[in-house]
């Protein structure tokens, strides 16, 4: 079966991401003149948080060829790091964020080492299994909310300052995180490491016989991806002031995959576009009818059938090279 198409023409590699990021930067300013300012800022902050998660998934899925159906676990790990530490009186991002990253890295290392001994659908299934394990573990943590989750008293502070309490402050914090994550991932993809990862996606045997330990490269990418997704989890917990096992459901993992593919995988900014379109469509359609999924479902099917390479494929009008 043919490898799926990767994101297209390089001429969009600067324009589209720039447009997206500038547009996102302007949202709070524009929202100031619109009704429902707080709502809009919150909505787009949510979009950016999922964009970060989607970018992390695109790194291993679009560039590494690893379809992880348990990626939401990292969202949950980041979120629970916030929640659990808050329960014990620790709420400074300077401590919480590294803790979240450490937990995510350990989880990725342990589960990745096992999962990567499999390929294809088995990899999908075993990452799903690990995601489910994380989910059920969270539901069993009764002192941290169990099934129902728990509320956070306040958002994390940054070096003692309540930067995140104000909606705009929070928005730009998330925006900064998105920009950093995006640039970081772009660098990785263009680096020596990225080259090997991309080669291994298309032809693992060839890459192995050139002298590359493909397993080690993929595992490293997996750990990096997990850590980035945990950042999104940290932000999500802060945005909702709430932590729950639902963050790690397999449906949520599925949604992340949808966002990446919808936008166009293997481009990074496709992941941003995908989360934007997915979440905005969700908001828009649910405004019309509570049964918006009846429209959204077939829309997805149509995108798959006729818009290969996702939305970026539609705009770009061609594949790379």
């Amino acid at each position, binding site marked *: 079966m043919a490898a799926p198409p*990767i994101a297209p023409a390089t001429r969009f590699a600067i324009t589209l991401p720039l447009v997206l990021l500038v547009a996102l930067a302007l949202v709070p300013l524009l929202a100031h003149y619109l009704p429902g300012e707080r709502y809009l800022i919150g909505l787009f902050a949510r979009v950016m948080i999922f964009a970060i998660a989607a970018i992390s998934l695109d790194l291993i899925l679009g560039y590494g060829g690893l379809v992880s159906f348990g990626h939401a676990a990292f969202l949950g790990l980041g979120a629970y790091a916030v929640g659990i530490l808050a329960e014990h009186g620790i709420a400074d991002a300077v401590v919480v964020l590294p803790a979240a990253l450490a937990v995510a890295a350990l989880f990725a290392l342990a589960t990745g080492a096992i999962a990567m001994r499999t390929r294809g659908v088995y990899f999908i299934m075993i990452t799903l299994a690990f995601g489910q394990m994380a989910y059920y573990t969270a539901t069993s943590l009764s002192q941290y909310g169990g099934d129902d989750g728990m509320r956070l008293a306040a958002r994390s502070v940054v070096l003692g300052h309540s930067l995140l309490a104000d909606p705009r402050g929070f928005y730009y914090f998330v925006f900064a995180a998105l920009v950093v994550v995006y640039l970081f991932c772009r*660098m990785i993809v*263009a*680096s020596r490491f*990225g080259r090997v990862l991309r080669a291994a996606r*298309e032809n693992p045997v060839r890459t192995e016989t*050139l002298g590359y330990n493909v397993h080690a*490269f993929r595992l*490293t990418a997996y750990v990096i991806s997990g850590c980035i997704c945990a950042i999104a989890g940290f932000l999500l917990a802060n945005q909702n002031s709430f932590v729950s096992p639902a963050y790690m459901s397999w449906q949520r993992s599925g949604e992340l995959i949808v966002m990446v593919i919808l936008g166009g995988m293997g481009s990074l900014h496709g992941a941003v576009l995908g989360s934007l379109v997915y979440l905005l469509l969700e908001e828009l359609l649910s405004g019309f009818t509570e049964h918006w999924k009846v429209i959204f479902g077939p829309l997805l099917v149509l995108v798959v059938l006729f818009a290969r390479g996702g939305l970026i494929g539609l705009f770009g009008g061609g594949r790379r090279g």
Partner: protein
Amino acid sequence: MAEPILQLESLRKNFGGLRVTDGVSLEIEPGRVHAIIGPNGAGKTTLLNEISGLVPVDAGHIRFAATDITRTPAHRRARLGIARSFQITSIIPSFPVQENVTLAVQARMGSSFRFLWPAARERRLEEAAEDALEQVGLSHRARQPAGTLSHGEKRSLELAIALALQPKLLLLDEPMAGTGRGEGEQLIETLRALKGRFTLLLVEHDMRAVFALADRITVLVYGRVIAAGTPEEIRANPEVRNAYLGEEAA
């Protein structure tokens, strides 16, 4: 006599009930061209897979420059200096031709766990890649996606990739397969120019190439070595004629 660079000692491999490699032993001296010939299904490609580490053997030993590599993983064998081309062209189709070769150069030159510097800007890597492309005559295709090359050009790219690794031992799996007359002659000349600089282990059906290049020939039938020797000895060997050469004798 120089220390052999590759020693296979009584290799044995079963796939289910089928014995694909049946007590195969051979030795290759450095700088020589050694050809393995035999009818289809003789297990020649499997043997290359065993040497490069893609298929584990059930019994026997493989020694490379006096190191036992029987249990060494494929990527480490590549690092030790064994490079190979594949019978069915194995390249990275979406990468430009040159990047395919650069990937190989990168493997040779230092760590690939570098995340921050854009790899495309590294002159050192690109120069070595350009070199290898020139040797096989593909410089004019450097920027094109490798997937768009003609079949013969892809075979040459395979060779360039293998050369870029500057290996001690080069395993070539039917490099002539599917090439037309002109491309074939070209390829034989390219390979001839490599003699002495590398050690070549060649699996081939094309007898022109075999007799033009080989210093020694091993004949494999149903996984067993039925004859080994110089090209003249093999040509004269009646068993080989029966089993394989038939009217193909050059």
